[in-house]
């Protein structure tokens, strides 16, 4: 469903992605792990074209999306994204955050958009927070609103960029619970995370990135139980403390 083929990205002199290949089938959960600066976030952003790859292709259901013929706005409607720092629109209520994309991108009438937005908030367990502003919500609640905002557009795939890294430990599980539920419902997901429990429990595939390349790929059991490279071994050692 999602294919990344030989993607390269330079930021000035810095070669951030050095030929990355990925394949994610429908309903699959792919977890990307790796040290900071290894290009994980850049790779995610290449998939919804927040960053344009300099070389290589990104395909969604066989369509090459990094092509001048394709509108990036269309691509972003197919791909939902959740950020490390939530990035909720601070001047809008939870409900308005979720419905903005529906009314402005999908051109849905206001009442219909509101109904759907309420339903999405209910899915992440925040029906009662619809009229709260982001600053009135905890980090975990904000991130769940952000997930609802992305889901509302009915994407084919969801990207998560370290969704729990900015959270206080007490709020991590409520966000992971929503993600697990989503995975069980059959959502295709690409998740950058350091939550090894989530990776072991939910991921169908794990890839280890370092210095802009994928060094290892496989099932969670293969990768975490029997790392082949020294890099991954030491990374796992650090993560698990």
């Amino acid at each position, binding site marked *: 469903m999602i294919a990344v083929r030989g993607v390269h990205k330079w930021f000035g002199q810095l070669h951030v992605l050095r030929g990355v290949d990925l394949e994610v089938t429908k309903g699959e959960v792919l977890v990307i792990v790796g040290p900071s600066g290894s290009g994980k976030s850049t790779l995610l952003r290449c998939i919804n074209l927040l960053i344009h790859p300099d070389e290589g292709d990104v395909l969604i259901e066989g369509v090459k999306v990094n092509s001048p013929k394709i509108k990036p*706005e269309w691509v972003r409607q197919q791909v939902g994204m959740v950020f490390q720092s939530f*990035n*909720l629109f601070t001047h809008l209520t939870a409900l308005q955050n979720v419905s903005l994309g529906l009314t402005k*991108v999908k051109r849905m009438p206001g009442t219909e958009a509101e109904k759907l937005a309420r339903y999405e908030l209910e899915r992440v367990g925040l029906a009662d927070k619809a009229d709260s502003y982001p*600053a009135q919500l905890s980090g975990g609640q904000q991130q769940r609103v952000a997930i609802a905002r*992305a889901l509302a557009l009915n994407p084919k795939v969801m990207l998560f960029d370290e969704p729990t890294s900015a959270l206080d430990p007490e709020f991590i599980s409520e966000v992971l619970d929503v993600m697990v539920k989503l995975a069980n419902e059959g959502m295709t997901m690409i998740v950058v995370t350091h939550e090894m429990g989530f990776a072991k429990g939910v991921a169908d595939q794990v890839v280890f990135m370092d210095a802009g390349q994928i060094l290892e790929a496989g099932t969670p059991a293969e990768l975490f139980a029997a790392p082949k490279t020294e890099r991954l071994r030491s990374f796992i050692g650090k993560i698990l403390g």
Partner: protein
Amino acid sequence: MTNDKRGRIMLPWPAARRIAVNAGIVIGALATVYFLGTLGLYNLGFVAKNFPAFLHGAEYTLGLIAIVIPIGFGAGFAFGWGRTSHRWLLHSVSTAYVEFFRSMPPLVLVVFAWLITTLVVAKNPFLSARIEDVGGFAISMSVVALSLHSGSYQAEIIRAGINSVPAGQHEAATAIGLRRGQSVRYVVLPQMFRISLPALGNEFASVIKDTSLISAVGAVDLMFQGTNLASLTAVSGHLGDLTLIWLIVAFIYLLMTLLVSRTLQGIERRYRVPGLEAAQL
């Protein structure tokens, strides 16, 4: 009566509270003028006699404010936006504008605009206009110059406002499929305004009083009326009446500034985000 967090006695409704504060300022100022009058410092009848002059001056000054604030804001918004642009030309032109107008004393700008307009139009053989006919137009150019001066300050306020909206906001807007213009309109602008409003209110309050400089090139505004009355009164040598003139002028400027700054504060309240007060961004 209710009490606030610190135990002070408050009127129960915020709106009533605000009206009471404004009325307090106005009545207090009027009472002071009246009280000084009862002491025999000046003759209050003087105000009644010259009422039309003050009224005309106030009217003219209101007109100046109604021109200077929109033009200044328009210029400030456009060039402030330009300052944040990555396009070299837009950025350079905006920066040059800000640095030039910010570095000029407003009085110099006002006089210069008048002089240059008069020189170009009246001395131009093709236009063959007489200096008397150019007067109104030259004053208009001075008004524009003052507006652009205010605009240069506002451009910096707008630039700071835009820069203080986190990049993640635009990124998130883009990620849900909004086009660039939509992201600016629905996500960046509303937040930028909320952050900029207090500083803009400050600049508006400041430029209201700067309109008095236009009297230097012959505008018949409140400042002109004050100066005119003062020069007539000075002949009689009555210092009390002279003081009264400037008290009245000051009072009218106070009223106008209050009107504008309180309006801005009303807008600020409309843009207020619960849980996110201006100080925290």
